[in-house]
């Protein structure tokens, strides 16, 4: 893959949080890449640091942020070098925007949805109100919200509609990359499918790239071109979607895949015993070792990232 195709390249991204019990190593040296007009899924369970990864990319740091380092190349330029004001103007919502977790519940209940969606346009694109509203109408078309909903309040909309509004809000400034954090976890099956249809259409018609953060393996396959599996603050496997869903490499990915209940089941789903390690008190060596069925002596050392046919896996089994 040539350098100039890469929309996003992340190298050794680190974000720790300061707490009274010690630093939380939420993002602990994450590396991955994303091409233009592709969607990568960050797959992981709660507590693995995936939401923190989104915040790290968008520099949405809380007050107790500790170490924050690494390189994030957007279109070849390292955005970590920009100062906060430049970042806010040029990157956040201009180049990269986000649909945070439970965004549909985060809409301001006393402001009409049309006005809310137009806000990023007014701030970042510097357009006037009339132009902003016409942009909103276009976005609503893209996400499938009827135009007359512009004058409605969030409580008048269903959950699915509100989520579409949140996506429209992320879209209105025409960013290259949208980060979605659990976009459908609280929604019903059909609404979920509809939202993914919307995302697929956006990818196809507008060429948007996506980072989808979720723990739901089944729905992640609806959008994924590439899959990155996150465990205890690190990416343990990165692969294209086809080979990943067919045959995951890392033992954790394998166990995850085996735990998915299926309609047409051939075997009983399995569950993973134990719990993920606390991000404050991380074990030395491979962080999955204590739950791994295939662990062996080498696992007391932190495994390197091994490249195998264009797939990356952090496991001694492939060394």
């Amino acid at each position, binding site marked *: 893959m040539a350098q100039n195709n890469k929309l996003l390249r992340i190298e050794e991204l680190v974000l720790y949080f300061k707490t009274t019990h010690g630093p939380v190593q939420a993002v602990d040296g994450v590396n991955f890449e994303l091409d233009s007009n592709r969607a990568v899924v960050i797959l992981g369970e709660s507590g693995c640091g995936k939401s923190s990864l989104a915040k790290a990319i968008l520099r949405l740091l809380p007050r107790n942020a500790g170490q924050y380092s690494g390189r994030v190349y957007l279109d070849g330029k390292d955005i970590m070098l920009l100062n906060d004001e430049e970042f806010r103007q040029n990157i956040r919502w201009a180049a990269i925007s986000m649909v945070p977790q439970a965004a549909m519940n985060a809409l301001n209940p006393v402001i009409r949805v049309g006005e809310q969606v137009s806000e990023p346009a007014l701030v970042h694109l510097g357009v006037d109100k009339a132009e902003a509203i016409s942009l909103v109408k276009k976005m609503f078309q893209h996400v499938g919200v009827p135009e007359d909903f512009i004058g409605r309040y969030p409580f008048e909309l269903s959950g699915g509609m509100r989520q579409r509004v949140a996506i429209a809000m992320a879209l209105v400034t025409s960013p290259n990359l949208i980060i979605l954090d659990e976009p459908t976890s609280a929604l019903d*099956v059909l609404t979920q499918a509809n939202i993914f249809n919307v995302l697929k259409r956006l990818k196809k018609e507008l060429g948007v790239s996506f980072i989808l953060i979720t723990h739901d393996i089944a729905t992640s396959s609806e959008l994924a071109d590439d899959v990155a599996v996150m465990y205890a603050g690190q990416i343990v496997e990165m692969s294209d979607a086809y080979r990943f*869903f067919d045959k995951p490499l890392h033992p954790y990915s394998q166990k995850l895949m085996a735990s998915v209940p299926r309609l047409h089941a051939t075997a009983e789903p399995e569950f993973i015993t134990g719990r993920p390690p606390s991000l404050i008190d991380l074990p030395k060596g491979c962080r999955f070792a204590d739950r791994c069925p295939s662990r062996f002596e080498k696992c007391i050392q932190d495994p390197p990232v091994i490249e195998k046919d264009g797939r990356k896996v952090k496991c001694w089994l492939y060394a």
Partner: protein
Amino acid sequence: MVTEAKIMENKRDARKVLLDINDLHVWFELRRFGFGRAGYVKAVDGVTFVVHSGETIAVVGESGCGKSSLMKTILGLYKPTSGKVVFDDKDLSELDSKGMHWYHSHVGYVQQDPYGALPPFMNVQKILGEPLIVGGVKNKEERMQRIRKSMEEVKLSPVDDFLLKYPHMLSGGQQQRVVIARAMIMEPRFLVADEPVSMLDASVRVEILKLLRGLQESHNLSVIYITHDLSTVSYFSERIFVMYAGNLVEKANVRQVIDNPLHPYTMALLTGTSEPDARNAETFKQIPPGEPPSLVNPPTGCRFHPRCPKFMPGICDVKEPPDFEPEPGHMVKCWLYDK
């Protein structure tokens, strides 16, 4: 606990009808200020089904279909507007408060949100003791014994480690185990589980579902499992009832529904359910547009007709379809199957 004799007895009881719901309607009156036509939210509008001992049925539907109201009426928290709920040959509407008390101790309730379901100011021991005290178990030793038994059954061991903990000290999975232990502690005949795993992590879901299945087998429990996630039903249910806008639109065995869905809504649900398959990213799912209708003013005739891809004008929008049975044991409320 579960002895040999009990298992034999259970097997004999196996196909006895435990719960009989007949033409159940649960309507809530809409309050309006002043005078004027207040409408009704027709949450459950003509539901009929039967649950046998030891049987697990899944009620599948999206939000707003009335499944919560159905469940709460079965639990005895709401009173039916019309129709009957008969448990073990006793009509619930004819029970006095003592009778209702008896009923409550025979039904276990597992809720969706494990943290919200547990009182934050009580520790595990107290939480599990409450249903016992309410159920009339006066002896303290006996209560402790049953609490320990219950906790072992849901694999919250070593028991002593957990007894004095408060809910916020437990993980989501552990909290849900406490909820299940509480539901089981009075040794009920059946459980109502409302989306018991939807708020848990993916890998924990399987664990909890397996636990529920194990309990169901060892106690010969009937379980009413309410969910909107079809992919879990094949592990955990025998029969599926699909609910839409206050009606049960399809009733069949799990395999029948998954392999041969008849109602267009069921077909939509199945299409909408994803499996981990990379090819999904290339296709758009063909699902009906729109949203479930309001329960105050449902559409005339078949309630799904505004969204139905197989809509037949003049038939579907005129009259509500009755139950048809195109194959044995497989009921569907759709004019497509009118012979």
